[in-house]
């Protein structure tokens, strides 16, 4: 472990300074309101600060470090021009409450971004306000609630969620005050139509669905699903986590979805930042547009304005207008790729996933081994049955081979799942190397199982005691 910045504290080593003070150095704050407690932040020089954080960065692994087939997360290459764009002073150094006439370029960008999102998703209006996918889900489910409420249809207290759904779906429904009813998957890994029919009722507000689903499979009966939900008076919510697979091929709006969220940090190439910031715009069909959060950007003549006068709006889900800086990056991405480029993304994402699925199924069990979209699920069944190797062991052994492992133990409906999403930005050579590494691990599992069970061997730390960390939480540094 590197020394903590607090352990590099040297009194008076920090030489940060302000310009000479040109105004009287008075303090007009009553003594009783002033801080008494010492502020014990570290004092470190600039050079040592830079070295500290540079050292930390060397103990991290990003998409630029290597292959990152993290299922459901779409860890594609983050174009550098997008970083450049968001850092332009005209975007980075403007205050959210500046007069509209001083931020016409920013408002125009938001306006155009909304239009592009509408076209890509097949929706009529978008808000750019939600800060992440889960935040978009919350916004969308609030819109579902507002819609039923306005119609006086308040007995709808349930939200349907497939058993293959992301954990955020049921959590979101709960946070917005709904009871969650799970819909089963059938033996093909798709929504069980009979179970959906049985669970749809006049108490159901809507269905949250990901398509392609979390098994990477396209819900082929989507039209039927949509009509069951709509005929029952519910709304259809699209979790956009997997949109990368279908851009330019088909659109959630045309499948019958009423509300969608997009993950700009997945589909549109903005970096994940080690956990954020992301951006989760929410789109709706015209009949739900009145419920969108305020403000929305409108064009009046040749001027762009922020419209707050929307009486049916659910209100605000975030301060200001959302993660504008992330929106600039995604806008730059869409502009760079254009219509053909976006379709090319879907083509290659799906090709890469099927290429891996096909070749890896020689060595690993693939429960739904048929045409997939942007990702697929394997598991450790072969290795476990024979030598007691778990999915966790395989993931940790991949670290020794220099890879970020796939998503593991999700979706929950596949035992010991290994969820692999290569994305479109990987070369055949990279994929072949990964297949070889996975084949090697399969061989090791057979010949040297202990090597796999005790992995990783080459990382700066070995497997970490997570149970101990939770039992006896140490969540900040304390002076010894």
């Amino acid at each position: 472990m590197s020394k903590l910045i607090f352990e590099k504290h040297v009194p008076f080593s920090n030489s940060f300074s302000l310009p000479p003070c040109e105004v009287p150095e008075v303090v007009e704050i009553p003594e009783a309101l002033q801080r008494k407690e010492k502020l014990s932040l570290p004092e470190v020089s600039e050079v040592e600060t830079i070295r500290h954080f540079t050292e930390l960065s060397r103990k991290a692994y990003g998409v630029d470090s290597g292959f990152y087939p993290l299922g459901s997360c779409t860890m594609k290459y983050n174009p550098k021009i997008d970083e450049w764009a968001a850092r332009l002073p005209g975007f980075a150094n403007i205050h959210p409450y500046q007069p509209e006439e001083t931020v016409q370029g920013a408002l125009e960008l938001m306006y155009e971004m909304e239009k592009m999102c509408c076209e890509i998703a097949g929706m009529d209006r978008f808000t750019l306000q939600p800060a992440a996918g889960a935040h978009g889900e919350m916004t969308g489910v609030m819109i579902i609630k507002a819609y039923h409420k306005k119609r006086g249809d308040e007995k709808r207290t349930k939200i349907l969620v497939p058993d293959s759904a992301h954990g955020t779906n049921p959590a979101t429904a709960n946070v917005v005050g709904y009871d969650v009813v799970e819909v089963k998957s059938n033996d093909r890994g798709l929504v069980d139509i009979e179970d959906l029919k049985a669970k749809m009722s006049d108490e159901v507000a809507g269905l949250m669905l990901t398509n392609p689903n979390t098994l990477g499979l396209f819900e082929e009966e989507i039209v039927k699903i949509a009509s069951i939900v709509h005929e029952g008076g519910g709304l259809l919510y699209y979790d956009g986590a997997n949109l990368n697979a279908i851009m330019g091929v088909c659109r959630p709006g045309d499948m019958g979805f009423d509300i969608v969220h997009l993950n700009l940090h997945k589909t549109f190439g903005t970096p994940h930042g080690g956990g954020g910031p992301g951006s989760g715009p929410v789109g709706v069909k015209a009949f739900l547009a009145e419920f969108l959060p305020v403000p929305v950007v409108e064009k009046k003549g040749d001027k762009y304005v922020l419209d707050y006068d929307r009486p049916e709006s659910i209100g605000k889900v975030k301060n200001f207008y959302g993660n504008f800086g992330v929106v600039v990056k995604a806008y730059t991405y869409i502009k760079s790729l254009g219509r053909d480029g976006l379709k090319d993304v879907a083509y290659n994402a799906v090709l890469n996933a099927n290429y891996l699925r096909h070749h890896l199924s020689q060595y690993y069990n693939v429960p739904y081994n048929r045409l997939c979209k942007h990702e697929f699920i394997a598991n450790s069944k072969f290795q476990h049955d024979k030598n007691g190797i778990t999915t966790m062991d395989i993931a940790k052994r991949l670290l020794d081979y220099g890879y970020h492992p796939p998503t593991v133990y999700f979706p929950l409906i596949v035992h010991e799942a290994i969820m692999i999403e290569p994305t479109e930005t990987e070369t055949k050579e990279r994929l072949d190397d990964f297949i070889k590494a996975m084949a090697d691990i399969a061989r090791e599992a057979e010949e040297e199982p202990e090597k796999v069970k005790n992995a990783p061997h080459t990382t700066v730390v070995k497997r970490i005691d997570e149970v101990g960390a939770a039992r006896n939480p140490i969540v900040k540094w304390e002076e010894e």
Partner: protein
Amino acid sequence: MRYTPNPPAVAEEMLKSIGLNSFEDLFADIPQEVRLNRELDLPEGLSEIEVKRHLLEKARRNITVDEYPCFLGAGAYDHFVPAAVDQILLRSEFYTAYTPYQPEISQGILQSIFEYQTMICKLTGLDVSNASMYDGGTALAEACQVAVSSKAKKIIVPDNIHPENLRILKTYALSGRFAIEVIPGKDGIIDIEAMKKAIGKGTAAVVIQQPNFYGIIEQGIEELAEAVHQNKGLLIMSVDPISLAILKSPAEYGADIAVGDGQVLGNNLSFGGPYLGFFAASEKLLRKIPGRIVGQSVDSEGKKAFVLTLQAREQHIRREKASSNICSNQALCALAAAIYLSLIGPEGLRQIALRSHQMAVYAKNELEKKGLTLKYKQPFFREFAVKMDNPSTMNKKLLENGIIGGFELDDAMMLAFTEKRTRAEIDKLVNVLGGEK
């Protein structure tokens, strides 16, 4: 521009190796009736030269706070960001990484968050901090959700918290999980007696913003802490982290939860986001707080190591039983905050807070010399409201004079000051507001 690296011949070879003939075969499972069957109605892709030109043109149509001095605050402040912050943020091991779910190859990110958590604890005086949230407004809403129980659902809020934060609370309350009671203030500050009267058995929490939306430093918070604690509710404070260098900390007031916006800690204004919300709490709430938390542990060889901890609270484990659906943090913005605080140090933060305050005091005195008066007479930190009949007309006049004015209230303009402002800029502001030119 494309970022798909396989040339057509290679793609074809890959298709063949899996028994397919064309890209179209990859989508055979998508029913015809939902196919787009046309091109997306978007322009053709652009080369990098064209994209640069296009974005530059848009960016140039915005007036930046570097071009015109900015006296806007109201939740986002034009504080100085040292050049070194962005240099570190551009380390791609940080910004192109996912959440540190694989701790063995993410020790750097985990440690930076652990350091951030410690810094937030030091600033607020509270025991524990999460890894950050979307922004100050949503962190406040999440804090309210932590406070509610089946018996106590009322959140008492004075009317002088940030109006956008109040709007977010009301939106989150659409869930029916908690109810907001807004208590009108007096003379720009909270009405302590009215607040105390509202507190009762069903009170989940009292929310106080310090300094409040008008920039005023509230007094008498200790009394409210006592009253709400007697009723087993929580005191939630929404605070400005820069102010904490010189103002009493939430812990000193007896707060159970402190939240706020961390934009001022090394993050650009960026037209309102991305920022970060910080969230700190007393030890007893550790297992209830939302979001990610980094903990210290040991590896199988007994070496110190960091890991995401207490995940049993989170949505991917608890699913429909989770009390928050948050599954991310604003890691890169929190990293910016940690780098910023390391670069300026405790004395630097104090100097920045003091200088901002002194600039504001100077401006107040100069405005009063011109016959203008403050809307409220209470002590302020770095922002205050100055009375005027038509703030919108005045803002236009300021803009004509190359100044980004303040936040408009009905009968006043809120002006904010930071260490970046100069005496000359303030003198010019005062001259325009005082009617000269």
